């Protein structure tokens, strides 16, 4: 029972971070700016990135011993939600996932060498976990690492590597003599890799395919040969963070649509008076309220007993995926033809939703796992 009776909480730090992020991003992530950043190869504003680094966002969940603030999932969620709300594009997700994986599975040397610079936002890190088969399961890793002299030779191709084209450091998963292992690749190695940018539906996001053509790395690159537990936890973190981002995004597109329902008139009255639009938008609002409850719940119990944490995170990812998907679908339809244009901002949310709901497992995938957790 202990700990598990606290289902949902909200600290002063969370409230403060949420407010700061909301104020900053509402001001800076104008649709005009977003459209400019979209056109660049890196996909985000380095200037705004540096500002968020100065605010300490990149060090939120990095322990003080490594130059961060020693906070956790609840505080990350509190900035992720506004990031989704204002469509903030950046390597924040990649960097946070990379940093936490380094923290949970890296050697002391690796952590000391890199975490302080990651916390300052000066070094970018990401994770390369998925392969061509598209499996969302953390242990489905087939690419191989082979011992070679003092080091290892890495072969295979990773897919969907978030911000792979932007990154300095890379953590990649390989099968090493039957053991699920992680390797940390340093900037000079990362720069040798062949990276194919992926053409994503989400124009504000960057990812790539990375080919390891027998890349040789030193023995010190090995992080762990026992990666299952940290990888499971990493996936869990990704569900929670993406859920927060999607809950925020759903709110953003909901507000965009709501505004339109008030200003657009047909048949001599605002279209929001038509129940075929009014009732679905109310359903979306209710779904968003439920999404926020699940997101903050999943963050509250993140470090608690594993089954509870996993259940909460999967529930959040399943529900927010469906919510965001529904909200963007109705957003396009309720704008009429203008909603179907490049010029209308609805598709920026639509694209984000289409990407995020399928990242790290969609609603069907998570409900299937939930069924195993809760029914068997």
């Amino acid at each position: 029972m202990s700990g598990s009776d606290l289902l949902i909480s909200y600290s002063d730090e969370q409230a403060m971070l949420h407010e700061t992020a909301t104020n900053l991003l509402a001001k800076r992530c104008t649709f005009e700016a977003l459209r400019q950043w979209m056109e660049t190869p890196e996909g985000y504003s380095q200037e705004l990135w540096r500002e968020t680094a100065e605010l300490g966002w990149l060090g939120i969940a990095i322990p003080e011993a490594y130059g961060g603030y020693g906070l956790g999932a609840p505080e990350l969620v509190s900035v992720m939600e506004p990031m989704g709300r204002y469509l903030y594009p950046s390597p924040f997700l990649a960097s946070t996932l990379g940093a936490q994986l380094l923290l949970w599975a890296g050697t002391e040397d690796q952590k000391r060498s890199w975490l302080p610079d990651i916390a300052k936002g000066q070094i970018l890190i990401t994770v390369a976990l998925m392969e061509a088969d598209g499996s969302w399961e953390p242990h489905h890793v087939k690419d191989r690492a082979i011992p070679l002299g003092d080091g290892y030779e890495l072969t295979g191709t990773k897919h969907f590597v978030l911000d792979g084209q932007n990154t300095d450091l890379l953590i990649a998963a390989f099968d090493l003599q039957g053991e699920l292992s992680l390797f940390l690749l340093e900037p000079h190695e990362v720069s040798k890799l062949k990276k194919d940018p992926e053409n994503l539906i989400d124009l504000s996001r960057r990812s790539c395919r990375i080919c390891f053509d027998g890349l040789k790395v030193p023995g010190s690159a090995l992080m762990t040969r026992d990666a299952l537990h940290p990888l499971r936890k990493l996936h869990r973190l990704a569900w929670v963070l993406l859920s927060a981002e999607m809950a925020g995004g759903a709110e953003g597109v909901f507000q965009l649509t709501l505004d339109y329902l008030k200003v657009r008139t047909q048949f001599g009255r605002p279209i929001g008076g038509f129940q075929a639009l009014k009732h679905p938008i109310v359903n979306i609002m209710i779904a968003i309220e439920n999404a926020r409850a699940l997101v903050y719940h999943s963050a509250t119990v993140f470090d608690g007993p594993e089954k509870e944490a996993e259940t909460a995170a999967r529930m959040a990812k399943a529900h927010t995926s469906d919510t965001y998907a529904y909200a963007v679908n109705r957003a396009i339809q309720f704008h009429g033809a203008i909603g179907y244009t490049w010029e209308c901002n609805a598709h920026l949310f639509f694209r984000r939703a289409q990407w995020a709901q399928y990242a790290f497992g969609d609603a069907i995938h998570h409900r299937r796992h939930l069924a195993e957790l809760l029914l068997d």
Partner: protein
Amino acid sequence: MFVQETPELREFRAEVANWLRENKPRPPKFRLPMSFLEVGTDEQFQYLRDWQQKLYEAGYLGMAWPREYGGYGKPQIYQDIANEEMAKARVPFVINVIGLSWAGPAVLRMGTEKQKRRYIKKILTAEEIWCQGFSEPDYGSDLASLKTTARREGDRYIINGHKIWTTLATYAKHMILLARTDPEAPKYRGLSFFLCPMDLPGIEIRPITKMTGELGFNEVIFDDVSIPADTLVGQEGQGWLVAVTTLAYERGAIGGQAGGHPSQILTASDVVELAREARRDGRPAIEDPLIRDELVKFLIMERTIELNRKRLYIEKLLTPGRPQVLRFMSKLFHSEYIQGLSELAVRIQGAYAGLFAGDPCALADGIWQRSYMNSFGFTIGGGTSEIQRNILGERILGLAKG
């Protein structure tokens, strides 16, 4: 800002749980209805009234209502905890729901001192049952157009008209009555709100049979019924305002209810258990991937309802711009959730789904078939789901009226 219970509250929770364990009444020989809306026999009525009285005497109803009128004068959190434990223990529902959850709070908020002293305590003890005379045959969702009249004559009002769907009218001592005092005024301004005695000459009550075959609601016909003028709540002509506030209590859009639950407690976990027992197409229903997916959806919704209840205490975590929405949406979401859950529970039964309560082979004694039918009481009564969506869209989101 954390919803963590103090040691004192934990102790209180344990105390309630313990009391409920020891005092939970034995299931009766007859079948109890699923909710207060379908109480149709005297033995059901007596059993439920006795239970409510016992709960009150133990101190677990009206905990946050003022002492001077019969409440226990404690902070609301005590009642909330008692409610949670009552649900957990699955004790019977309370019978006097209309009094406890909306007529009573309305009187406490808008009634005169004399009215509070006269009515409140007997609501809590279930000595006096309340009913609600709002709907009429021609005016349901469009309540404000109702036609029943109240004509002032000295210190009396004379009531004439036809109310319908009046739950518990046959057992009620009083009715919250909405009637038109000024037929000339615009529809919202001509109404007045009364606490009408039910044992007067000229009142005729005709029970109506529900689709389940159960009783519970009635027609109530007023033929020159004379009631004292001091039964008026608020001013003459302010009845709509009083009614809207009363409806807000009914829907849980504002807090202040005396406590207890209005219907048998059914959970998504119950349906999971059912899915383990039930066989579809010759195989355990729980092995069917589509059923599994549906079950998980309802488990998520159930968790969400619980989380949102907790979230009410965390002011900063309410959504900016619409902090009141969690309460306003609760009736709609909950009633539709129960309807969906009950429908799923029936679907899970496969070939057995068609058996009704009373058949020896009916699963869980047909409770889910009953629950599915009875669930419409909550998606229609108290303002339909469609009207709730209108209210949310217009009042909370500021959309144009439809």
